[in-house]
Structures are given as C-alpha cells and as structure tokens.
C-alpha cells in the first residue's frame, strides 16, 4: 500500500518539473521585457532594476532558471503587477471561498447526479432515460457563465428568493475564523451566519455544478448499465436475493467505482468554471482573482495561478487514485 502511494508521488515529480520548465519558457516568451511584464503598471526604472536583480533577468538563461526554481521552492510566486500584493498570500486568502463554492457544486452534482444516473439506467430506453440523457447533454454544452447569467437574472429580477451576490449578507456581523464561512458560523455558534453563508452558496453552486452534474449523470448511467449486464448480477438474482440488496451490494457498489475517478477529473472543470462564475456572483475567490488578472494581463498572477492549479489538480488526482486503491479490492490487494 505504501509503495503504491510512493510510486504515485514519484510519478508526480517529472510532471511538475516539466511544468516549471514550461512556465519559465512561457514567462520568457511573453511580449516585451520580462521585468516589465511582471511589473505591469508599476514599472519604473528603479523597480525594473530591482526585479532584474531579484529574478536574475540580467544573468545568463541557466542561472535565471535556477533562480526561478529557487524562488518557487521558497514559496515566492512574485507580486501582482496591479496591486503589488504577493501572489501566494492573495491566493491563500481567497482560497477558502473557492473551495467552499467548489464543494457546494460537487455536493450538488453528486447528490443529484448519482440517483438520476441510476434511475436512468434502471429504466433504460424509457421516457425518463431519454429525458435525462438529453438533459445531461444540454448540461454539458451550456456555457457556465451563460448559466450563471441566467440564474442571476431569474433570481434577482423575477424570483427574489435566493441571494445572487456575495458570500454573506453584510448586515450579519459574522466572525471569521478559518475563512470558510459556513464552517466559521458553526465554530463560533453563530448559526444564522452559517445558514446565511449556506444560502449564498446555492445559486453559484448550481451554476458551477451543472456541468459536473451532467457528467456524473452520464457516467453513472453508463456504468450502471454496464454492471447490470454483468454475470455476477445474474448470480445474485439466482440466489433469490431481494431486489434492494442486489441493487445496493451487487450493482451500485460496482458501478460507483468509475464515478469516483470522475470526481477527481472534475476538479479541473471546477476551477475553470470558478473563474467564470465567481465574478458573476461577486464571490471573492481565486476564480475572480484570476479573472481580474486576465483582463489586466497581470502575468505574475497568471503564472502563479497556473502553478497553483496544476499542483492542486495533481494532488487531487493523487488522492482520488489512492481512494480508488482503497475501495477497489482488486487494486488494493495486487
């Protein structure tokens, strides 16, 4: 088991190394002077000289690369060219908001997607099935930001039932401990704050979670259909086991394995979706941060973001792989 973990971690290294090289190349490929690119609006002869010194841009290329890697390893992702704030710090400050949103979206997608996919598979070929397949195709193709718009329009104009902006009602005086608003409310026993934060997550969660929902419905449906045709299900029925037991133990348990792996793959989608949704709903997460950075061509933030995302994505996939190893005995015991 341990060797399994170590092996997977080891595979991560060349990928990350390659990524760093690629990022460095990208940084140097940007139009104009790298120092100027990183400083953007704050470029003055003095600051340019400073950056050149710090990054070693006046040094030969190999030295530059080493300096670059050195900085990365120290956690120095540079400073935003717009605000001058250190990138890493800004990320960490805004990370909880995005994680909360991503979790809400994932929860929505899984809690709704798995039962729907199962129902569709059970009644394959029927009306419900066709409806769900069609609906899931639509869900996959609808642009995230368009959906976000729609929800915002509908709920701010015609059905003012749910909040469409921000993470918390400014009138509630909430104490923030971890940065995860829902959790904070629970920790400080401010139940109303917690509930309020939760309510604020509904619409953005639905917008962000729709594509993952569609994908989960499709994968669950396909997986359940495949398992239903397998011999061991026939054996289970031949034993006279009641339907419910056959479904739980012999169909679902087997069918959900591929679904778990998909969840890992969703992370990438969730991040890019967050970039597009957070700004619509005025949520201060890393998504909207990146959104601003792109519109302002803030290369320092962009570079830091890419590294951050790739690392997170790789780690999440690793966790999912490990999880798979835990729940599938064929992987665990080989």
């Amino acid at each position, binding site marked *: 088991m341990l060797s399994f973990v170590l092996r997977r971690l080891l595979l991560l290294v060349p*990928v990350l190394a*390659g990524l760093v090289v690629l990022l460095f190349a990208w940084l140097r490929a940007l139009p104009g002077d790298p120092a100027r690119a990183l400083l953007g609006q704050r470029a003055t002869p003095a600051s340019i000289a400073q950056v050149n010194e710090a990054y070693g841009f006046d040094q030969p290329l190999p030295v530059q690369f080493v300096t670059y890697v050195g900085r990365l390893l120290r956690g120095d992702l540079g400073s935003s060219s717009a605000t001058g704030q250190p990138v890493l710090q800004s990320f960490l400050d805004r990370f909880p908001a995005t994680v909360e949103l991503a979790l809400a979206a994932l929860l929505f997608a899984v809690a709704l997607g798995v039962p729907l996919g199962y129902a569709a598979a059970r009644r394959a070929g029927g009306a419900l099935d066709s409806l769900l*397949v069609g609906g899931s195709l639509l869900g*996959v193709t609808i*642009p995230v930001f368009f959906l976000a718009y729609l929800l915002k329009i509908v709920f701010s104009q015609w059905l003012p039932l749910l909040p469409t902006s921000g993470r918390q009602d400014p009138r509630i005086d909430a104490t923030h401990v971890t940065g995860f608003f829902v959790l904070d409310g629970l920790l400080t026993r401010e139940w109303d704050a917690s509930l309020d934060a939760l309510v604020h997550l509904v619409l953005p969660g639905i917008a962000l979670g729709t*594509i993952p929902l569609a*994908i989960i419905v499709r994968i669950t449906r396909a997986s359940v259909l495949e398992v239903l045709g397998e011999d061991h299900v026939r054996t289970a029925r031949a034993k006279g086991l009641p339907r419910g037991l056959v479904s739980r133990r012999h169909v679902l348990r087997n069918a959900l394995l591929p679904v778990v792996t998909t969840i890992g793959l969703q992370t990438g989608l969730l*991040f890019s979706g967050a970039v597009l949704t957070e700004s619509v709903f005025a949520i201060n997460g890393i998504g909207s941060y990146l959104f601003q950075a792109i519109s302002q061509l803030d290369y320092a933030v*962009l570079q830091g973001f890419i590294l951050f995302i790739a690392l997170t994505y790789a780690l999440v996939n690793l966790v999912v792989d490990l999880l798979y190893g835990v729940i599938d005995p064929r992987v665990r015991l080989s």
Partner: protein
Amino acid sequence: MTQISSSGPAALGPAVPSAPDPDAVGSGGLWHSAWRRLRRNPSAIAGAAIVALFLLVAVFAPLIAPGQPGVPLPNSGVTPSSVPGPSPGHPLGLDSPGTDLLTQLVYGARQSLLIGVVSTALGLAGGAVLGVLAGGLGGWVDTVVMRVVDILLSIPSLLLAVSVAAVLGQRPVSVMIAIAVAQVPIFARLLRGSMLAQRGSDYVLAVHSLGVRRRTVVMSHLLPNSLGPVIVQATLTLATAIIEVAALSYLGLGDSNPSTAEWGRMLVNAQSRLSTDPHLALWPGFCIAVTALGFTLFGEALREALDPKGRK
C-alpha cells in the same frame, strides 16, 4: 473547458445468444453499418439538423443578414436604459452598440465556424503528429511525448488556452492557436492509444512479416483504421471550441476588432444591460448552447454508430 468525452455505449442484458444483427460488420463494412444506424437514431438526426442549420447560416451569412456586422446604425435610438426592439428591417431589434442583433448573430455563426474548424484542425494535426510518433515509434519517444502530454493535461484546458492567448496577444489567430493547443493532448492520447492497440494486432504482424516498411505500415494501415474515433473526437472538439471561444471573449482575450461579430463578445456587452434587456444575452447564449449541443449530439451518435460491437 468542457470534458465532452464519456464512456462508450454499455451492453444490455446477460450473455444470452441473440439473433445476428443484420447491421453488424460484414454486411457492407463498418461505415455502411454506421450510416444505417445513424439514420435511425433520433438524436443523430437532431444533431445533424442543428449542424446543417449552423453551417448554412454561417456560409450564407451575407445573404441572410439584414446588414453589415459591427456597423452601428446612426440614430439607432439606443439609450443607457433601453435598446430598440424588433422593427421592420431589424427582426430582432438592435443590441447595445447599436448594431442589428440578427446580423451580429448570423455573422457570429460564421466566426464561430471559422475559429472552430481552424482550431480543431490545428489541434488534430498537432495531436496526430505527436500521437503517431509516440504510438508508432514507441520507446523513449513515446515516454517523452506522453510526459509532455501529461503536463499539458494537468492544466485545465481553459487556463491553458488563456496562457497561450496571453502570450500571443489579442488577435483572432491567437485564439485559434490557444484553443488548438488545449486540444492537442487529447488528440495525441487518442492516436497514440489507437496506434498502440493496433501495433499488437495480428494484421499488423502479418503485414510486417511480409516485409512492408514501418512507415508504410503506419501510413497505409494504422492511420485509416484510427479514422473513426478521430472523427468522433473532432466533432466533439468542435463543440468544445465553440464554447471556449465564447469563454475567451468573455475573459477579454478574444478578437478585439469591433467589426467582427462574435457570440462571446455579445454576451460580454450584454452584461451591463442584464436587468433591462436580458434578451441581448439570451440570444447569443442560446446560439452557443444549441450549436455546441448539435455537434455533441451528432458526435456521440457517431461514436455509438461506429462501435463495432454495435448492440443497441
């Protein structure tokens, strides 16, 4: 951005001997049976219809549109709080810069088609080269290429497209290249997999034993057999490209030339008027979604139809 590649069709029913399928391979080959299956599949027909409509509109744009794209009309009657509705000569009314909405939509289709096709073709070409090299040659070439593909895949495709676009600047070409780059790893993986699967197959061994050179084997035998899945993926990629173009525009990285009509940019412009004239956002959004849906429906149906195991 969207991962439109799901698992294939699932088998139905336990292993019971079934009557031979008259559509099965052997009665006219894979393509004929695929065509027959497609003809009967309602979602394939729907998808094909949407795609055909899209193509028609895009190609015959000048004939359909009432005006010129990106040309604001003088005396348009656009105010900060309202936008003129439908009138004779302007079936859908005007949009916020004062141009005819229908014209923008129609020419937007043309733009989407252009970018979609070019970026898919580029992605396909790039991915094919990498994939064939990796799968056909194997060994260290394979390892290196796949590491690069892994790296590219570890970045969500939208962000990848963003980075490339950032480097290349705000030209229409950069958008195409950016999206293409994001698709290269997918095609590379696909072709490599196909190459590998076939390299070990009997017919390849047979051809080899007859002394045919490696390159000929790859070009004349392996490639044609990989065509099916590649076409399916290309269709799905087109759908993704259409959405990603819009996303890139939304992020401000698209074509900044105001005379080019583009659905994504229409969405951006519509943002400020969301409360007063939501239809300005709904129309382009609807177009994006439906077009992408059409390509996806068709692509998925094509995938099922080409599956040699073809059982319903």
